[in-house]
């Protein structure tokens, strides 16, 4: 009887939390007519902004992922001095205010910095450029990929890697044929989270690049200049695009076969 009452209380609390998440989003969607949404979707500025947001976040996820995934393997498998400190540093972007992260990145990539000067010598100015936006997106979203991949690698039995080595595989082959495929689900989940988090980044991005305008900045700009009525359709459209991308990537990442660990 006591358990049943506890279950009821927990279920009610769960329902309240779900309502808290769904209600504002649903309210926003219901307050936007299909005609307005359709008109907004046809705007060149909106289309360009959404496309920019999606591809920059995608490229940032792939490029930074190439370095982050082997690093995650190292974190899962090796013990080294100051490992706890390194793990803490990885989580830093999650806990610091993103506007502060934006200021830090601006100092790192501005024309006066070493990185900025190297970029300038190659004809690349990070500030006000998609590359700068990608850096800002990656800075705040990398922990999601690293942590998920590290957990994935940690879940791969060491004995399978040892077995592969005794069968003549080099460490690189063990990584690519055993560790990576077995941790793949976690890695893809982490990459999807990183991609989604990068797309939704506002605070760090607006400091690096107001223009070209990613969608979160466009929503803010429309809200500031024209008010809620003009900002809302872009926000709804962006939510639909984000959801579509999220569902598509999740379905692509769903396992074809199950296996025991």
């Amino acid at each position, binding site marked *: 009887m006591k358990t049943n009452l506890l279950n009821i209380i927990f279920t009610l609390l769960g329902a309240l939390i779900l309502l808290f998440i769904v209600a504002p989003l649903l309210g926003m969607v219901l307050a936007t007519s299909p005609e307005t949404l359709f008109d907004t979707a046809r705007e060149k500025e909106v289309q360009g902004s959404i496309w920019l947001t999606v591809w920059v976040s995608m490229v940032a996820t792939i490029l930074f992922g190439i370095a982050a995934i082997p690093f995650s393997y190292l974190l899962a498998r090796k013990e080294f001095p100051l490992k706890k400190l390194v793990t803490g540093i990885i989580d830093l972007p999650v806990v610091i205010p993103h506007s502060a992260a934006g200021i830090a990145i601006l100092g790192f990539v501005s024309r006066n910095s070493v990185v900025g000067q190297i970029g300038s010598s190659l004809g690349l100015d990070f500030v006000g450029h998609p590359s700068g936006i990608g850096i800002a997106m990656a800075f705040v979203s990398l922990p999601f990929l690293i942590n998920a991949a590290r957990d994935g690698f940690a879940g791969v039995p060491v*004995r*399978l890697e*040892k*077995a*592969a*080595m*005794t069968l003549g595989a*080099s460490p690189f*082959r063990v990584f690519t044929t055993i560790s990576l495929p077995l941790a793949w689900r976690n890695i893809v989940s982490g990459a999807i989270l990183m991609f989604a988090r990068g797309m939704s980044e506002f605070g760090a991005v607006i400091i690096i690049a107001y223009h070209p305008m990613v969608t979160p900045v466009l929503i803010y700009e429309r809200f500031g200049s024209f008010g809620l009525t003009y900002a809302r359709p872009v926000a709804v459209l962006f939510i639909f695009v984000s959801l579509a991308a999220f569902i598509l990537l999740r379905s692509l990442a769903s396992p074809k076969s199950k*296996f025991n660990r």
Partner: protein
Amino acid sequence: MLSLNHIVLRLEEFSLHDITFDVDQGDYCMLLGESGAGKSLILEMIAGLVTPSSGVISLRGEEITHKRIQDRNIGLVFQDYAVFPHLSVRANIAYPLKGRFNTDEKQQRIQRIAEKLGILHVLHRSPVTLSGGELQRVALARTLVLEPSVLLLDEPLSSLDPKLKASLRTLLKHLHQEGQTILHVTHDLQEALFLADKVVVIEQGTISRSGPPEEIFRHTGSEFLDHFTNNLNPPYQI
């Protein structure tokens, strides 16, 4: 053929000291000891997965103590089989053959070893659909396909039911009769009596005795051996 000389391994909470024994060509050597005695660590040192603190491991007269794992030509079958769950049985057996043989020879080798171990019918299947006995045979096939100089077996029968155990025992005996040198780790005295022509007993991190099984079990005198010989089933009693 395989020789361990004064091997010492110091770990944080465990150590092996003065491990010395030989396995001759064609021997079926059983490394016998209680759980936690360090038997598996000895196998991992021979395979190259763990480096001893001191001492020498030699194979066919060549020192291999610090030789790369991949170049030792020593096969190790793990206690939990360690069959790759994301690869088919065929891909598991083909795994060590990559870069060594052409496609035709690879397929011939896979067919041959699968036939020998009675797993031809499961070649296309995923390991997650196999029984413990089948998994053990796949692990053996994957290791034997490269024709290793020495086959190391880490408690290969421990997690099988009695019927499968008997069938695998017969298979191991058959492999030995064909000339395969085998070093088999177990805590089961009956396995040692049935299969081994040499037994090495490890107690408290060191070798307490070694020799033919009849000799080892006739003169027990150690707590470990006494415990086991007193509990032997009738068919195995000495």
